[in-house]
Each structure stands twice: as C-alpha cells, then as structure tokens.
C-alpha cells in the first residue's frame, strides 16, 4: 500500500511533488527556522503565540467539536498558572517536572468541578453558569491574600522553571523551542483524540444529542470527559504562560481573557485541527502590531475583528486557506 503510493508520487512531475510539501515547509520555516534568527522580543511574541495556540486548541475541543459554548475558559488556564506560581511563591518549588503535571492536574480538577455543576443545565444556561463559575474563581484570586504576592495584585517576580540540569539556564530562544516541543506534542494528542471514536462521538453530540443517546452513547459522560480534557490542556497552557510571562494576575482568569481563545477559534476556524492555531497566530501578531501603533485602542480593534469575523467569515480563515490550497494544488500538482 505504502510503496504503491510512493511509486505514484515519484511518477508525478517534480512541481507536483514540491507543491505537496509547501504547507509543511512553510510551517517548518515559520515555527522552527524563523524564530532562531529573530530579535529576542519577537521570539517572545512567537512563544506567546504558541502558548495561546495550545490554549485555543483546547477550547476548540469543547466548542468546535462538542458544540458547547462555554464562557470562562480562562479559569482552567489561570488555575494551572496559579498552581505553578503558588508553588514557586510559597514553597520555592520551581521544578518544571513538578510544575507541569501539577498545572495539568489542577486545570483538569477545576474543569471537573465546574463541569459537574455546569452540565446540570444546557443551552444558554450552560453559558451563564460556566461564566459565573469562572468569575467566582476570579473573585477568589482577587480577594484572598495568600493567592497574591505581598502588597500587590497577582504573583510577580517568578523565576524561570528549573529543568534539573545544573549548568543550564534559559534564554528566550531555548524557552521558545521548549514551548514549541510541548505544543507539537499537544497537537499530536489532540489530533489523535479528534480522529478517534471518542472524537467522532463528540461531533455526533454536537449534531444531535438525542440521536447519540439512542445509539448507545452516554452523552453526559462524553461532554464531561471532553470538559476535563479541555481543562487539562488549558491548565498546561497556563503553566507555560507563567514560565514565559513570569507574572500572573486575576486578569488572566477574567472574562476578557476568556474571550481570547474564543475569538482565535472563530477566526481560525472551529472544528478543525489547525484553525485555532492559525487564529492564535493572527490575533497575537495583530495585537503586537497594534501595540506598536495604537496600544490603547487594541480592545476596540479586537472587538471589531471579532464582530466582523462572526458576521462575514463564518468558517474562519482555515476554510479559506484550505480552499485556496485545493485550488493551488489542483492547478500545479494533480494530487
């Protein structure tokens, strides 16, 4: 089977062969090669983009694939981040090998608790409840002294994580590649989940929950598990964010922050694998450019982009990209 395909591929004109690899080459250049030659503040932006790509992809699992519109996704992100920050602040534990699993677990645990309450209701109420629960967490981080660095809001001055290797110290670029590796692992895992029977079932639930039940699927259980997985990945993104940003505050649990993965998913294309990644790239880079020229107007721009995207670009950028891709490869490639 594979050798037959290989023979087929070799027979095609060289242009065709090359065209097939363009997206991978482009991806490789953007993600792997380019950052190495950029100035360090831009490397930081790349790191931010990859972290948010994980965050947005986690959101798409529950929104794009399962069809649950939930608000307050930042709660799981923030929970993971705060867990790691608190470990560093109060216990001096900065080991990466402990921080990452803790962040994932806490993110999953918060999602398990919130999901249990929220899944008691459906539709618009579900939205309300996920939102209100996230706000609960927000108000806790705002008010409880122990959750903040002394004398301020949030936790600051966090060190880079300890890899356990004595001679090693982080640079902007090494942190980026580290985050990239984690991202690629996450992407692979999500890819598997999406294409597994479980992932198919989620989409079935999105389309028609009553039918899924009569087919033998315990719809509630699937939604609950998806919620927890989402929380785990979001928590992981939160940990990486703390390692990168070295600061976390209640803002990162607030509703405005919850909005970011949603807009990334919508712009990039929901229910796809790479849509959220593309959306994250667009938003983070537009934010960066806005910060150079009109930083105070960024929320306005963000809101404007979002409204326009919802009104006119329903499938998200990735649909248009994949259509464009089909046209190009058809013309040049005979795939």
């Amino acid at each position, binding site marked *: 089977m594979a050798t037959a395909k290989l023979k087929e591929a070799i027979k095609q004109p060289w242009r065709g062969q090359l065209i097939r690899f363009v997206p991978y080459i482009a991806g490789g250049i953007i993600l792997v090669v380019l950052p190495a030659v950029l100035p360090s503040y831009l490397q930081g932006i790349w790191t931010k983009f990859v972290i948010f790509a994980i965050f947005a992809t986690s959101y798409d699992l529950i929104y794009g694939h399962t069809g649950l519109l939930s608000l307050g996704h930042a709660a799981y992100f923030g929970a993971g981040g705060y867990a790691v920050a608190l470990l560093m602040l109060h216990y001096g534990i900065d080991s990466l090998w402990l921080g990452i699993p803790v962040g994932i677990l806490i993110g999953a645990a918060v999602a398990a608790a919130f999901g249990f309450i929220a899944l008691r209701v459906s539709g618009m109420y579900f939205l309300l409840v996920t939102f209100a629960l996230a706000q609960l967490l927000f108000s806790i981080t705002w008010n409880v002294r122990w959750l903040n660095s002394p004398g301020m809001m949030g936790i600051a001055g966090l060190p880079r994580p300890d890899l356990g290797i004595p001679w090693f110290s982080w640079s902007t670029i090494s942190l980026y590649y580290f985050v990239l590796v984690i991202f690629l692992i996450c992407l692979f895992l999500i890819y*598997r989940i999406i294409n*597994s*029977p*479980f992932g*198919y079932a989620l989409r079935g639930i999105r*389309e028609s929950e*009553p*039918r*899924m039940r009569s087919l*033998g699927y315990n719809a509630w259980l699937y939604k609950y598990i998806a919620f927890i997985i989402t929380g785990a990945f979001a928590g992981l993104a939160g940990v990486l964010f703390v390692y990168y940003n070295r600061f976390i505050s209640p803002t990162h649990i607030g509703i405005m922050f919850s909005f970011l993965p949603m807009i990334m998913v919508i712009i990039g294309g929901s229910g796809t694998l790479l849509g959220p990644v593309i959306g994250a790239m667009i938003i983070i880079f537009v934010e960066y450019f806005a910060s150079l020229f009109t930083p105070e107007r960024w929320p306005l721009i963000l809101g404007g982009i979002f409204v326009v995207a919802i009104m006119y670009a329903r499938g998200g950028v990735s649909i248009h990209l994949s259509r464009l891709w089909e046209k190009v490869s058809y013309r040049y490639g005979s795939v």
Partner: protein
Amino acid sequence: MEAFRTEGLSKDFGGVHALSNVSFNVEVGEHVAIIGPNGAGKTTLFNLLNGQLPPTSGRIYFFGEDITTMSTHHRAHLGQSRSFQIISLFSNLTVLDNTLITLHGTKRSRFQMFRPTNTYKYLLAKAQEMLTTIALWEKRDELVKNISYGEQRRLETALTVASEPKLLLLDEPSCGLTSAESADITDIIHKLGRDITVLLVAHDMDLVFGVAERIIVLHYGHLIADGTPEEIQADPRVKEIYMGIEENTGNATAS
C-alpha cells in the same frame, strides 16, 4: 418469548393525557404497526419505550427486565434501536461518518481516544457493505445535508437496522417519501431476520399492510384496538376514527 411488555403506561403533560393506561405485549419477531390519528400518542409511546421521556405511571419490561427508569443509552445496549419522525442524522457530518458513529455506538471501542477511527477495519468493512446495499457508498464523503431527502431516509432506516438490534422502533420511516422510496423501506424491513421485533408508527397504509402482521390502534392516548390487519379493517370503532383515511390510501399527506 416476550420481547417487551407495557403495563398501565401513562404519560401526562400538565393537563394533557398523552397516553392513558396502555398495556400490551409483543413477542419476539413480531412486526407490529401502531396507527392512530394525530395526537393519539404514538410518538409519545415511542419516547417512553426508548427512554427519552419518563412515564407518569406504569411499567415497561424488555425481555423480562424492568426498564421503566433506565436511560436511553442503556436501552440501546440492551438492543433497542430507534428512528425519529423528523430525520435526526448528523447533517454536518459525512454519510460515512454517520455510519461509523452509529456502528460504534454499542461497541466498547466508542470510548477509545487514541486510535484513529479509520483503523477499525472490521467496522469500515461493515459500513461499506451496508452503504453499498443501499447504494450510498459512492456518496460516503458527502455531507448528509447535501444528499436528497429520500436518500437521508434510506440511510436513517438502514442505520437503525445496522446495529443488529433486538427491537426496532421506526417512527414514520416513510414520511415524505415517494411510493417507490417507500417500497425500499418495506424491502429493508422484510429482509430482517425473524429475531428482530419491529414496532412501526406509520400513516402510510401501504407500508402498514405490507409489513405488519399485527396492528395496534391508539386514539387520544388510549389503546382501542389490537389485532390482525383483517380484524382491524373490519373493526367498527376503527372505521369510525378513520372515516377520512379511506379516501386517502397510500402516502399520508400532513402527518
């Protein structure tokens, strides 16, 4: 052997008595049609049998087991399969995806999170076989919302049968179909083995007489007649209710 039995099944919605004290039993392998005017409670009966709604009172036994409070998905594992009056296929998913999801429903592999769906060769083969039988294999990558209504009905009915259920609940399977398409449905039901019990709600008398050996008549939530097609056709109470229907043999208009 008894496939299922209802005892005093009733369902009230506020002041509306959708079903009142319905009791009957069905043996394994029987093909039974449930008929009655609109509002008689036919779909409500299905919703109670399949677990979408809880009864106000009464009990349901499935192969001897009391399933009155059992969840829908559990009943599917016991062997129930149901089609819906309004097509409820997954319209934004492909024909093949619809089939695979259906086939996984009663398998343990439905919880598998890591292995890609298309590596389940056995299920893929089964899907191919089934889709080829109903002439939809070529359209397997089409989104369900893009195939014709008749094809969707055919797919839904075939999928209901695909999981090899013990009890088939078909709610208006020929609703909206031409007589040729309706004949396809009759075919599918005839090809079923004698282990499969079929309960059918229909307005289409051709389908009813073509498939059922026994007819149950509901009227305002009450079971008023239960017998062979000949007995039902001769029953004066049924004639009274269906006065209008005699002019309307063949496909029903508005359901």
